[in-house]
């Protein structure tokens, strides 16, 4: 496959998978106005749970579902820490992230679980279509199928009565309470769903890369935040559907930059600086343009 095609297809795959992380971060950060740092821990949790179950002989798809469940529980716990124990959101997420590191080590009985000798979801799909297991086409088919299901499920869910109540909680919590909505439950549900999605991403990645490792989640929250912010800056989405598209689109663009830079031989250390610069440019351009046209610029948001 030619180089450009290879870069695009790999970034497409990564955009879909990390798009799940971006959607998860978007659900908590933007919809619920809850900055949730559990992500680094729940991503690894998803990978660890899926890997351990697959090695134990469980069907890889069931193992992936179990991983979602594990992430769901982790998010639920974060929500409980915040709503019932009154621990500030930021701190609750950090505590969970730190605690999950040890829990993940325990789950994997060590730092790393190898999946190279196991049959993973990727292998099953490859056999179904008669392709080789490591090929990018298989990865994209799997990621696309999962992302599509998640997309439609969330699109539906956020328009239901509960989903609407969840969105309103991030917008005006006081109002939701005076309209009879249980905001505590909303926060817990939102965090749970979000971390379930992130764990799903971790489960997919661990099966694709051939192992689960306790360090695989480090930096995921940054990736999710960057994707959400880039997506918002580029797409200016209005309405639930476009917001979901923007999250995935932002992840795609972010991973595209990284993939290009890596292939050009840039050191990942420099890479981080360059992506930071790119995000700054992406965000600053609209305001610089506004300033040039002497238009009114709204005050800076905190996050």
């Amino acid at each position, binding site marked *: 496959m030619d*180089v450009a095609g290879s*870069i695009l297809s*790999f970034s497409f795959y990564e955009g879909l998978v990390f798009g799940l992380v971006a959607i998860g971060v978007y659900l908590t950060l933007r919809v619920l106005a809850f900055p949730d740092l559990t992500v680094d821990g729940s991503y690894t949790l998803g990978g660890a749970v899926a890997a351990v179950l697959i090695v134990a002989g469980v069907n890889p798809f069931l193992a992936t579902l179990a991983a979602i469940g594990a992430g769901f529980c982790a998010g639920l716990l974060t929500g409980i820490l915040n709503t019932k124990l009154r621990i500030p959101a930021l701190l609750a997420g950090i505590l969970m992230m730190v605690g999950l*590191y040890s829990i993940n080590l325990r789950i994997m009985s060590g*730092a790393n679980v190898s999946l190279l000798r196991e049959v993973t979801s990727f292998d099953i799909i490859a056999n179904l279509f008669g392709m080789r297991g490591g090929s*990018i086409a298989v990865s994209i088919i799997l990621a696309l199928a999962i992302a599509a299901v998640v997309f439609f499920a969330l699109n539906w869910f956020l328009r239901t009565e509960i989903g609407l109540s969840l969105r309103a909680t991030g917008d005006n919590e006081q109002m939701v309470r005076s309209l009879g909505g249980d905001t505590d439950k909303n926060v817990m549900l939102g965090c749970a769903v979000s971390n379930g999605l992130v764990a799903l991403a971790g489960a997919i990645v661990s099966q694709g890369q051939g192992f689960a490792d306790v360090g695989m989640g480090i930096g995921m929250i940054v990736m999710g935040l960057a994707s959400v912010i880039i997506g918002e800056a580029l797409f200016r989405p209005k309405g639930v559907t476009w917001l979901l598209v923007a999250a995935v689109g932002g992840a795609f663009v972010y991973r595209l930059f990284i993939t*290009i830079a890596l*292939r050009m031989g840039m050191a990942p250390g420099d890479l981080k600086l360059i992506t930071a610069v790119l995000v700054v440019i992406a965000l600053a351009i609209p305001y610089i343009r506004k300033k040039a046209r002497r238009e009114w610029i709204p005050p800076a948001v905190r996050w």
Partner: protein
Amino acid sequence: MKKGIIVMLGLCLILLAASLPVFSGCDNNEEMYTVCITQIATHPDLDNNRQGIIDGMAEMGYIEGENVEFVVRNAEGDMTSAASIAEYFVSLNPDIIQAITTPTAQTVVAAAEGTDIPIIFSSVTDPVTAGLVPSWTEAGATVTGVSDWFEMTPQVELILSVLPDVQILGIAYNAGEVNAAVQAAEFKSAAADFGLTVVEATAASTADVYAAGMSLVGRCDAVWIPTCNTVGGVGIEAIIQVGEENSLPVFGSASGMISTGLVGGCSVDYYWVGLQAGYMAARILDGEDIAGIAPIKAAVSTILYPASATRMGVTIPQAALDSVDIIMTD
């Protein structure tokens, strides 16, 4: 919305345009072999490994620039980057992929599944548990390599030869690194055979190394560091500082970390490991089938570094100095 779609399309077009001139150099030439090397982090032992590969292949007639092109990438500790690098390498369809350390080897094997690209790993402590090869004596269909596994008994014996009265040993490592965790467990059981007890301190990242080191002061008589990228690689300076400030002797398990300033240790020679990986690659390029090349364990040499020992408050007995393979100097 529109702006986003325009930007994305624009990026794709730029890519397609740029792909031709910049990247065409990677086409597989008749005479030029392509060898891809992926490394997980930067520190002396892994760097020696990489250099060994290049030198080993050169010794066998595969010289960089003449008939071999090396594509080298370093993931700098980021797992996601390692996966991206693996994917990239596979897309280049090279003649050989050299993977240094366990996580990079695992991602390369996963990405190359279904292809027949020969993969050679080096500095992987336990390739069997990692799923790279079926057993210590058989290669995988497309995978073989050089392990840096070593026996622990000689390590303990060396420590005892320098400090015969030692009772309690301490280990500092990153529990999140599978290599290090395996070695720590092995070391504990070997030490128990000599009637010694072992205490542990773990560091989850380089930021925690100094604290881990300090927590061992007063709890043990001497410290041993496994081949851990975090503590023994990137963070070794902090441990040396702890040892020198508190007169706590520190022993290591790799020549790179020992040469930075430890009392001594048994080391796999990582340069030697790289050389072996390079020889294996040469054999495959010469036409040998990779499935027939069994994985090998590295040889171990004993090292002592008297000047460091003095800085850590220890004088090495002459008898010990006489029986080691290598004596390092400043």
